[in-house]
């Protein structure tokens, strides 16, 4: 095999996965002795992990041209063992625009988090082992989305679950880390077992594990065993996406894990769950035309959206709050996908991408705060904007993005989701979709409220005396956050480019199941539909931004001409009473308004709801395991009756 042949882009998907697993192996070979450099205890291993993730990202970016723009579906048989006797016997990778879309998200998040890890992990023990698990996790998720057969999907799910559990428990000294990992292990394994059961049920009936072949065989011959398999697979992937009722796990796992891993759990692992659900509902079982299926996804999405945002409002820990918001945003994605229109899917994928970017940024900012102050308790922090100005600005960009403030990226995608939902409601004359649109709009405001709380409690307000000596985080960490912040702004300002290059090809791939089947060499009976991304709204962020800039410029010039900046501010250490805060004349003492209960005016009216939620989320792993079983039973019942 010569070099040119090796550099054929058809090999790139497998390279992208293998380079990560290879990275894990090489890191392991390097041994476990920490390096002498205090700024990088992992030494060479950190750079290996960084290179592996970087190469992986590069390979996937090179695939944009043929797959996204060219519309090609890459079918790759490992070792050239393909179809024999009409059945797929080899291991296959199948990369269509949807797979590549998710793979790109994952690779970006993994790469940025690797940059961040180098300086972030300096205070920890066993950092060399961290990178082994890190590469395994990354490889597992990437393998999952690129895989072309369902058993390999299960294998990758296992790899990523165990790596994620180990990384959740990585900081064993942190209170609750082991407990969180145990909860995750129990429920995660139930999910994995459910996937395995589903795979077995399918294999027993269709004698194949290849996704494309299953997709060509199943739709015409749905029987009770297939429905059972569907229910098992759906619940299995739900546990990976942490959607309701599996959201309490996310909060524990995100809260305990190092921030660089929270980014992966939130931005990458949940995406793999969503990817699995899309593959199941749209490809494998092709059930999205059914009202029952649309209802299920939109309902669960809306419930996730609303329940988790209210849960987030009640949190008093920075990272747990972010964890609940993750699930809330995943709820948006699920709702949009459940709308079952091309615009809906495109908007949902757009939001999935944005979620990876802004939630990654927010988790990294939370990590920066933890790195410098040693706590993420909202009740103990405050006033950090004076000590960590860059982190504050980066955090604000993330917070504006997630709360859907124009012109950041969260707004662009949420706006499309509202449109899609309302348009769908009008087309089908179905009040349910209308309710979903209203819930989405209100959830967005509650998200903003929640981030105002974080802003006030952590970055503004008054600085507690014990954090007088806090410094700005090292450049490496700021660089990682900066990359994500720039991406957040760019994807918000140029929504049309993002849509035409990334999300619309992916949404088109979702709609054209036939091509996915035929690319593997099987017979497809599904015609490729015409898809349209038309929507009625208008939003031109570039023009708006231009006008805002002109207005702001004019105002600033006027303000500076009026000597707006010539303020009187205190000089020196001993602050005169003139520059102290107004306390009704009293001496200034440390007094910070913030923490978990900032919006009591809202919570007071919802107190019965919050009491109920508080009792429901008991924190006992037995309860959560029971929830999983009940959810599985309900899913089986629903599938049996409705499909």
């Amino acid at each position, binding site marked *: 095999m010569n070099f040119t042949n090796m550099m054929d882009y058809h090999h790139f998907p497998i390279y992208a996965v293998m380079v990560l697993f290879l990275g894990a192996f090489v890191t392991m070979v390097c041994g476990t002795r920490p390096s002498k450099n205090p700024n990088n205890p992992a030494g060479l291993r950190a750079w290996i992990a960084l290179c592996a993730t970087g190469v992986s990202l590069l390979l996937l970016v090179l695939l944009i041209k043929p797959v996204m723009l060219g519309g090609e579906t890459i079918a790759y048989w490992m070792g050239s063992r393909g179809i024999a006797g009409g059945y797929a016997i080899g291991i296959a990778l199948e990369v269509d625009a949807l797979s590549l879309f998710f793979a790109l998200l994952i690779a970006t998040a993994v790469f940025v988090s690797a940059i961040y890890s180098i300086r972030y992990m300096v205070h920890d023990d066993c950092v060399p082992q961290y990178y082994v698990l890190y590469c395994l996790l990354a490889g597992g998720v990437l393998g999952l989305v690129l895989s072309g057969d369902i058993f390999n999907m299960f294998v990758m799910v296992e790899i990523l679950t165990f790596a994620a559990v180990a990384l959740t428990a990585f900081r064993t000294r942190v209170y609750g880390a082991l407990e969180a990992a145990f909860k995750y292990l129990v429920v995660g394994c139930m999910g994995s077992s459910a996937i395995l059961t589903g795979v077995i049920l399918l294999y027993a009936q269709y004698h194949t594990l290849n996704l494309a072949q299953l997709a060509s065989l199943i739709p015409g011959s749905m029987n009770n065993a297939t429905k059972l398999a569907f229910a098992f697979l759906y619940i299995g992937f739900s546990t990976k996406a942490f959607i309701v009722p599996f959201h309490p796990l996310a909060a524990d796992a995100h809260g305990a894990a190092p921030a660089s891993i929270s980014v992966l759990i939130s931005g990458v692992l949940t995406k793999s769950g969503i990817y699995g659900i899309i593959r199941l509902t749209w490809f494998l079982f092709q059930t999205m035309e059914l009202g029952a299926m649309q209802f299920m996804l939109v309902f669960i999405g809306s419930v996730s959206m609303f329940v988790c945002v209210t849960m987030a409002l009640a949190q008093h820990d920075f990272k747990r709050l972010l964890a609940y918001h993750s699930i809330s945003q995943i709820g948006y994605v699920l709702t949009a996908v459940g709308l079952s229109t091309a615009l809906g899917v495109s908007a949902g994928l757009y939001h999935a991408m944005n979620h990876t970017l802004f939630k990654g940024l927010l988790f990294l900012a939370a990590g920066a705060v933890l790195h410098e102050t040693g706590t993420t308790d909202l009740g103990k922090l405050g006033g950090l904007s004076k000590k960590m100005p860059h982190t504050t600005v980066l955090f604000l960009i993330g917070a504006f993005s997630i709360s859907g403030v124009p012109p950041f990226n969260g707004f662009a995608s949420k706006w499309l989701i509202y449109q899609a939902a309302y*348009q769908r409601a009008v087309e089908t004359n179905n009040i349910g979709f209308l309710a979903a649109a*209203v819930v989405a709009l209100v959830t967005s405001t509650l998200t903003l409220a929640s981030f105002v709380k974080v802003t006030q409690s952590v970055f503004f307000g008054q600085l507690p005396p014990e954090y007088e000596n806090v410094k700005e985080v090292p450049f490496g960490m700021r660089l990682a956050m900066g990359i994500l912040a720039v991406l957040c702004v760019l994807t918000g300002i140029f929504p049309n480019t993002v849509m035409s290059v990334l999300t619309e090809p992916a949404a088109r791939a979702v709609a054209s199941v036939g091509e996915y089947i035929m690319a593997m060499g099987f017979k497809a009976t599904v015609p490729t539909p015409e898809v349209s991304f038309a929507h009625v709204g208008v939003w031109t962020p570039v023009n708006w931004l231009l006008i805002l800039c002109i207005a702001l410029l004019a105002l600033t010039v006027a303000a500076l001409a009026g000597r707006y900046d010539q303020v009187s501010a205190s000089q020196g250490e001993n*602050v005169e009473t003139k520059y102290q805060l107004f306390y009704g004349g009293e001496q200034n003492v440390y007094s910070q308004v913030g923490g978990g209960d900032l919006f009591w005016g809202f919570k007071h009216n919802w107190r019965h709801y919050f009491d109920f939620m508080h009792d429901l989320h008991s924190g006992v792993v037995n309860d959560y395991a029971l929830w999983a079983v009940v959810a599985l039973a309900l899913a089986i019942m629903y599938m049996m009756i409705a499909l």
Partner: protein
Amino acid sequence: MTSIFLTGLQYLGCILIFPGFLFCFFCGLLLTGIDRKLVARMQKRVGPPILQPFYDFFKLLGKETIVPAAASRTTFLLAPLVGLAALVVIQLFIPIYGFSAFSGMADIIVILYLLLIPALAAILGAAASGSPYAGVGLSREMVTIISCELPLVLVLLAVAKVVGNALGTGLCFSMTEIARYQVENGSLITKLSMIPAAVAFAMVIPGETGSHPFDTAEAETEICEGMHAEYSGAPLAVFKLSHAVKILTLTSLFVALFFGGIGTGIIAVDGVIVFALCVIATALFISFVHAVTARLKIEQVFKYYWTAVSGLALVSLVLAWYGL
């Protein structure tokens, strides 16, 4: 080349003069002045001169600006400017009869979200001041925003549905389209389903602008002006101006949504007509409400908006859904 230059000049004129800064400055402050005069007259007082807000504004420009030692200076000083600029830009998107300065650039959902930016700027400025009074104030302001959001969303969805039905497109979000429809077919208020929506929107106006009885965020007698507790001089002047412009923005949005069919087609005359309608809206929904009510507690504000006002908006949405 010359035509591009002229178009640019025209847009610049729109931003700086009409309906941009200059228009917002004069009409906004005038509206506040009229409001104060009317409230005084309703309370049997003589009241301040109508030009009083102008005096207040220029006086504040001449005052010393103190930045507290505990404040984050840049955010503290920048927040008022961003808030004002964002408000003026929203004003550019609201059509005046048939005329809109920048047509086809934003729809009603976008305007809903753009309205968050000035409030957010005020909140960030308050947070940056470090004052605990401001902390309490911003918490209340945020709850007020949440309160107003649900009825506003329902009203706007109802409007989109009604206009969409009439145009045959099913849905219409574009502000320009809504204005054009009203110019051709008469104001939306003449539709049965739009009457509760208009009432609900009118009830939202005092909440969004933070005037009585929903001024919990700036309650000067209990939390020392709340969010603006540490602001003095020019930044405070900008905040006061923003407040005035916000009244103009919301009332003119109200007029554009429900009374858009009143006009002549000549921009100058229409501007005057819209402003007159804004004055009437201010008098009814801000001054009158101010004169007859006492300040509510924040949880009462929330309850009021999510029950009574949202209920009205929901009625309108249901009526719109069934094509009335």
